[in-house]
């Protein structure tokens, strides 16, 4: 290895990329895209998207349908005086979505109710109908037993559990599991995106050198391993720059946004009649806008797993670039790389729910899954030190392996023109060099 050559390659990779329009646009658009994505997510979640449907109720008791109509007048229609055959015909003609027959036995004997419906409406309809009927039948049973208002209140009361964390050192802290789960997911997602994004950068760079036919000119001055290392380091430096810009912009914006939002919302808050609430509202505002502080160790681990993940995968992306003859030919070669990343991505959602399950623990120790899974777990739960250190060690070892493999494929691949290599060719190249 001649480090001067590697440094020259690094410098070129970095400077040409950092000045390119693509880099500037990506730096602006990626956070915007993220913001839009989150916005859309919140919008969909918050959107009152209740579907409309009508359920005919044939109620022999005459009591249940009244309660149902109290819950939703438009949804439940009293068809107790209509023959069942007509109700069936109405469902068939799609005048009503479905019907339910209620009689004494449902209230006294715990017999199952039956919804006859056209099949449209999906789970949301079924859930709504089930809970509405459960509620109405229960109320009717309570009414018949003539229970006191106190007992009814007990039935309607809700029980809340607050949680606090107690560390092994005996320190008790507020529990932000919900918040940390979201943080863990975001960190996993960022690493997921970064591996594909920066890996793709490297891959396209390698293909570009091949299609431009400059690679052999370069190869007459630089060893393939120097070129590969220089490229990986150059794109790595791009990643640091881009994240640096984002972090600076984010902290800058949130520093401005806090007081700004307070000054905009402040006057509004004062219009609320109760002046006592005003002070409280002002106190709460920064708390909403402030991100709850993350532990430094989490951020350090994020950086470690980010870079190990990048290193582990980027050399493989370079190898694939060298084996492909054009960018469109990379699809099938990408499979062995994208498969583990996507599997890790899928397990990540499980790890969010249950970060200490066997699947989560084992998955987070597998080097190709670690960058995404381990960081999600670290964010949410207390991961034993042996697990994080094992994962880091295994990733380092795997990196040596992938680098060795990639270097072999790369040094043959960059000089083979004309056709995209198959996996069989790749195996041959590895043996050959």
């Amino acid at each position, binding site marked *: 290895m001649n480090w001067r050559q590697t440094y020259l390659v690094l410098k070129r990779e970095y400077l040409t990329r950092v000045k390119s329009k693509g880099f500037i646009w990506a730096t602006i658009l990626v956070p915007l895209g993220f913001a839009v994505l989150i916005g859309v997510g919140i919008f969909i979640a918050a959107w009152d998207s209740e579907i409309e449907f009508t359920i005919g109720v044939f109620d022999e008791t005459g009591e249940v349908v009244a309660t149902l109509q109290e819950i939703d007048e438009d949804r439940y229609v009293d068809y107790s005086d209509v023959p069942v055959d007509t109700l069936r015909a109405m469902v068939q003609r799609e005048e009503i979505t479905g019907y339910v027959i209620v009689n004494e036995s449902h209230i006294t004997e715990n017999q199952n109710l039956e919804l006859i419906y056209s099949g449209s409406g999906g789970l949301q309809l079924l859930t709504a109908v089930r809970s509405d009927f459960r509620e109405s039948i229960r109320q009717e049973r309570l009414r018949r037993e003539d229970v006191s208002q106190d007992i009814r209140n007990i039935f309607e009361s809700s029980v809340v559990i607050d949680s606090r964390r107690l560390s092994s050192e005996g320190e008790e802290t507020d529990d932000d599991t919900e918040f940390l789960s979201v943080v863990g997911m975001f960190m996993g997602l960022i690493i997921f995106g970064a591996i594909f994004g920066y890996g793709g950068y490297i891959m396209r760079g390698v293909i570009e050198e091949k299609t431009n*036919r400059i690679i052999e000119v*370069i190869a*007459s001055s630089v060893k393939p391993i120097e070129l590969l290392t220089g490229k990986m380091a150059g794109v790595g430096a791009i990643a640091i720059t881009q994240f640096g810009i984002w972090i600076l912009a984010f902290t800058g914006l949130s520093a401005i946004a806090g007081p700004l939002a307070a000054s905009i919302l402040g006057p509004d808050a004062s219009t609320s009649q109760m002046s006592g609430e005003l002070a409280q509202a002002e106190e709460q505002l920064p708390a909403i806008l402030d991100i709850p502080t993350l532990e430094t160790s989490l951020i350090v681990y994020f950086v470690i797993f980010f870079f190990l993940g990048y290193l582990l995968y980027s050399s493989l992306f370079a190898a694939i670039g060298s084996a492909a003859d054009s960018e469109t030919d990379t699809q099938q070669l990408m499979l062995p790389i994208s498969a583990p990343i996507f599997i890790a991505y899928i397990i990540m959602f499980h790890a969010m729910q249950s970060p200490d399950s066997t699947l989560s623990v084992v998955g987070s120790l597998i080097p190709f899954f670690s960058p995404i899974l381990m960081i999600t777990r670290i964010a949410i739960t207390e991961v034993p030190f042996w697990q994080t250190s094992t994962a880091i060690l295994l990733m380092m070892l795997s990196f040596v392996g992938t680098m060795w493999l990639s270097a072999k494929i790369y040094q043959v691949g960059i000089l083979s023109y004309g056709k995209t290599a198959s996996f069989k060719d790749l195996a041959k190249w590895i043996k*050959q060099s």
Partner: protein
Amino acid sequence: MSVTISVQNVSKSFGETKAVDNVSFEAEEGRIFGLLGPNGAGKTTTIRMINYITLQDNGKIFINDLPVSPKTQKLIGYMPEERGLYKKMKVGEQLIYLAQLKGLNKTDAKEKITYWLKRFNAYDWHSKVVGELSKGMSQKIQFISTIVHNPEIYIFDEPFSGLDPINSELLKEIIIELKEEGNTILFSTHRMEQVEQMCDDICLFNNGKVVLTGNLRQIKKDYGKNTVLLEFQGDSSFLDELDDVRINNRSTNFAEIRILNGLNPQEILKKAMQNSEIHKFQLVEPSLNEIFISTVGEDNIKMQQEAKLL
């Protein structure tokens, strides 16, 4: 005369195929050495090994008595057959980068690049992106990138393929000039006629093996003046009636006739005169193409070409 490039019993296989098979030759200082042979004969692989891009399986290669290494790479200016430039980089930046990779520092690189760009009337392109240049222009930049670090050895792989006529001439001039300055030049081509005008020494490749190597003048002399160049007007069917000859370069009023079996050239002239009007009759040394065919054997070449088509 000292030996600049020495290739000794070098072999290289790719899986089952032997691309280069026990090849040896020497290129001497201050001369132009031509590596000839049909496509796929192993020329490019040999050149890549000399440039330390591909490593040989067996044998040794020395540049100025040093085994090939990153150090010897810097002594060589190499223009590969598959050549190109970074399309999105500016001409100046790109040339500086390539010169730095060859070991020049930035100041020297700038100075040399300015000299060559001016020399080729290309200084105005300094800040242009390569993608904006015409093909001819970027070919000139490619030449500069090959020679800018002022090496003693120049290797061109199929240098004239894809060049426009103006740049072809320019490259010839550069090569002759470099030779006159005492540099060693090695180039490969599958078009024999280009070599005849330029090379001092040659090495003929076929099927990964060297079939003939040595001084071009000497080789031609050894073959003797047994080729007839005939220019005529009229019926050319007499050519088909000639025995023991091989006719190369036949067209409606020209034929290059190689006499294979001691036939008196005057016989050909007689026959030709009976049938047509003769404008030129000349006895010459055989062309390189003819030498190649007679060394390798006509059938051999045909078989190869057919194999390639399949």
